C-alpha cells in the first residue's frame, strides 16, 4: 500500500498524519521552523514571499479558534491569500457532501487545503480526491490525527531539551479520544524517543494502545517518575456522560497535574498542553502558569511549524 502522504519521489505531498513518515521529513519540518524562528528578532517572524500568489483554504468542518488562527497567520506570513470557511455552519447542513464541497473549492483554484473534520479519515478522503497539484494538511480528523499539533510539540521539546534520543516522555489523559495523543506517539517514536508512556484510567485508553509503542501506566506517581516531558491532554466534559469517568473532581484528584504530582518527575521537566485547557480538571493553575509550563511557547512555535509545513509542501527548497 502506498503511503498517501508521499509522492513517488518520497517527498511530502500531503500532511495527514505523523504515522509512517520518515524521520528525515520530520526533521526537515523542525529545521525549517527553526529557521523561521531564528530569522526573526524578538520572537517575531517576518513575512516571506514563499506562497506569494497561492491560495490557502482553511476548511473547518468542526469549530476551532486557535488552530485555524495560527494556520491563518502562518499562511499570511508566507504571503498566501487565505480564505477561511467555517463549514460546520454552512454547506453540509444543506445536504452537500464533503467531496462536493471540496470540488467547489477546487474550482475556486485552491492550492492548499487545511482541513479539520469530526470524522477520522476525512483528510485522507479529501487527499485521495483532489488533483495532484493540490496539497492537503490535516488540522485534526476525529480521533485519528493532528499532525501539526504533534510537530509543534516536537519543536517545543527540541527547543527545551535539544535531543530526542535520551528522553522519557509521558502523555497524560484521554488517549482514547485524542487525535493529538496518537500523532504525538507516532512523532515521538519516529524521532527516536526511547520511552513514551501513557498515563490514564483504563476507560480512557484504546484497547491496543501498547501496540503503538508505549508503556502503559494507570497512576501518576509511577508514571511520572523520572520523566523529562509531560504532555497533558484535554478532557472533554462529555466523558462523564458516557460512563468513562465518574466525575471531574475524582479525575482531578487522581490524574490532574498538580505541583505535588509534578514533583514525581525530574526537576527540569517541562509541561505542555495542546489547549484549550480545563483548569482544575486536568491541570492545576499553579502548574499551567508555573515555571515548568511551556504552554504559551507551544502556541508561538505553532506558527513557525505551520509555516514550515506549508513551505515544504509548496516545494520551497
Amino acid at each position, binding site marked *: 500500500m502506498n503511503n498517501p502522504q508521499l509522492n513517488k519521489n518520497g517527498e511530502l505531498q500531503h500532511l495527514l498524519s505523523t504515522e509512517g513518515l520518515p524521520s528525515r521529513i520530520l526533521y526537515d519540518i523542525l529545521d525549517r521552523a527553526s529557521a523561521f524562528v531564528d530569522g526573526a528578532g524578538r520572537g517575531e517572524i517576518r513575512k516571506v514571499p514563499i506562497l506569494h500568489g497561492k491560495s490557502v483554504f482553511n476548511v473547518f468542518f468542526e469549530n476551532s479558534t486557535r488552530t485555524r488562527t495560527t494556520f491563518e497567520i502562518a499562511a499570511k506570513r508566507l504571503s498566501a491569500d487565505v480564505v477561511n470557511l467555517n463549514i460546520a455552519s454552512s454547506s453540509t447542513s444543506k445536504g452537500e457532501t464533503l467531496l462536493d464541497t471540496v470540488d467547489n473549492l477546487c474550482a475556486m483554484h485552491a492550492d492548499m487545503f487545511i482541513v479539520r473534520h469530526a*470524522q477520522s*479519515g476525512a483528510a485522507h478522503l479529501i487527499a485521495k480526491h483532489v488533483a495532484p497539484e493540490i496539497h492537503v494538511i490535516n488540522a485534526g480528523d*476525529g480521533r*485519528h490525527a493532528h499532525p501539526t499539533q504533534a510537530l509543534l510539540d516536537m519543536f517545543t521539546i527540541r527547543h527545551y531539551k535539544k535531543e530526542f534520543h535520551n528522553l522519557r516522555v509521558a502523555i497524560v489523559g484521554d488517549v482514547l479520544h485524542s487525535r493529538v495523543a496518537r500523532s504525538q506517539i507516532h512523532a515521538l517514536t519516529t524521532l527516536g524517543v526511547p520511552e513514551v508512556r501513557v498515563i490514564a484510567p483504563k476507560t480512557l485508553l484504546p484497547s491496543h494502545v501498547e501496540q503503538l509503542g508505549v508503556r502503559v501506566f494507570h497512576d501518576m506517581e509511577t508514571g511520572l517518575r523520572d520523566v523529562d516531558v509531560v504532555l497533558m491532554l484535554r478532557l472533554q466534559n462529555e466523558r462523564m456522560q458516557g460512563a468513562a469517568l465518574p466525575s471531574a473532581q475524582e479525575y482531578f484528584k487522581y490524574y490532574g497535574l498538580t505541583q505535588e504530582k509534578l514533583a514525581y518527575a525530574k526537576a527540569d521537566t517541562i509541561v505542555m498542553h495542546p489547549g484549550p485547557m480545563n483548569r482544575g480538571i486536568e491541570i492545576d493553575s499553579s502548574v499551567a502558569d508555573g515555571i515548568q509550563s511551556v504552554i504559551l511557547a507551544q502556541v508561538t512555535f505553532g506558527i513557525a511549524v505551520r509555516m514550515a509545513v506549508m513551505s515544504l509542501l509548496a516545494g520551497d527548497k
Partner: protein
Amino acid sequence: MNIHIRNGRLIDPKNKLDEVQDIYISAGKVLAIGKTPFGFVADSEIDASGLVVVPGLIDLAARLREPGYEYKATLESEMHAAVAGGITSLACPPDTDPVLDEPGLVEMLKHRARELSQANVYPVGALTYGLKGIELTEMAELSDAGCIAFSQADEPLTDTRVLMRAMYYAATFGFGVWLRPQDSFLARNGVAHDGEVATRLGLPAIPVCAETIALATMLMLGRETGVKLHICRVSSAEGVSLIREAKKNGLNVTCDVSMNHIHLSEMDIGYFDSNCHLVPPLRSQRDRAALRVALQEGVVDSICSNHSPVDEDAKQIPFAEAEAGATGLELLLPLVLKWMYEEKLSLSDAVSKVTCNSARILNIDAGHLAIGAVADICIFDPDKYWRVETGALKSQGKNTPFIGMELRGKVRYTLVNGQIIYQEH
C-alpha cells in the same frame, strides 16, 4: 425442454459424486446422469468440457433492497447479478423499507421475484414488528406467505424476555430463528474491530465481547426453547469457540460466515478504505484463521455473500459515516474457490458450503443433483481469471473490498428449474 450437459466434471457433495459425467435434464428436473435415457432428444446441448457442473449456489444472505431502497439496487438488477454468480436460490433479510413483517409484503416480493423468473427468492421474515424487538410478528401467517425463517437482520433485540418468547413461539411451529450476535450497547457507535487498526486510526470500536455476550445469550435461550437456531455471520475466534462447544453439547444450532471475513481482516482497512466498512466488522488475522478452521471442521456450516449493495455516494464519505456493506453475489463462487485453493481443499468440500449445507439450513429440497432433483445448476470455468471491475458487475452495487483484484473462477451457465437463465457471452 430437454437439456444435455456434456462432458462436465459433475460435483454433487450431498451425493458424494465427483466425476466427468453427462447430465440430462427434462421438465425442469434431473432426468439421468451418465448414459442417455432411452428416447431422450435434447432441445439444447451444453458442452461442458473443462468446466465444472455443480448444484446451483444457495446464498443465505442477499439484500435485494426492495422494497424501499431502489436507489441502491432493484430486484431486477440483483436477480441478474445472482444468476450471473451461479446463485439459484437466495434468502433475503427482512430489513427492507417497509420491513418484511406483513404477509402482503412477502407475497408481493415473492410475486415480483417469480415474474422475473431468475433465481428463487426465500424471504426471511421479521421476528418482531418493524424489527423493533418489542412485539412478535404473525410468524405463521408470514410462513404461509413464503417466509422460510425469522430474523432481526442487523437490528438488536435487547429484551431477553421478548427474545425467549420469540424463540418459543417460532419453536411451536418448527420455524428457524436466524440471529446475528451483537450486543448493541457494547457495539454502540462502533465501526471497526476493537484492535490494532481501530486504535491506530482512531475509529470507534466494536469489541469481540459484543459478539460473544450476545452469542452466549442466544445459545442459552436456544437450549431453553429448543428452537432451530441459526447464527448469522460469526466473526471472531471466541464466537466460533462458543458455537463449537454448543454443537458438541448437542444443541440444534447452525452457523454461517460472510465470504469477506474468510479473506479479509482489519488490516485491509489500510488508510480508511470505506469498502472495508462491513457488518460485522473485519476482525484480526487470528479471527480470520479461526473462521477458516471452523469451516473445515464443520463448526461453521455455510458461507454467504452477505450481499449488501450500497450506492457510491454513501461510500464516498469518511469511514465511520460511510454506509456499511459490499456487493457480493457475483463474488461468492470465486471467493469460495479462492479459499479452497488457499487451503488445498477438494472442490466437493468447498462447494458443499454454498449448496447442500445452505439448503439444509433453509430447509429446502435443493443444493443437490440426485435423479429427480430440481435442475438448479451452475456451470463454471474453474481456471478462468477475471478482474473485479465496475463494468464487470451486474449488481447495482459496485462497492467491494475486492475491486480491482483478479479472481479465479467464472460462471458460464446458470440453470434454474431446468431453464438456461444465464449464459456468459
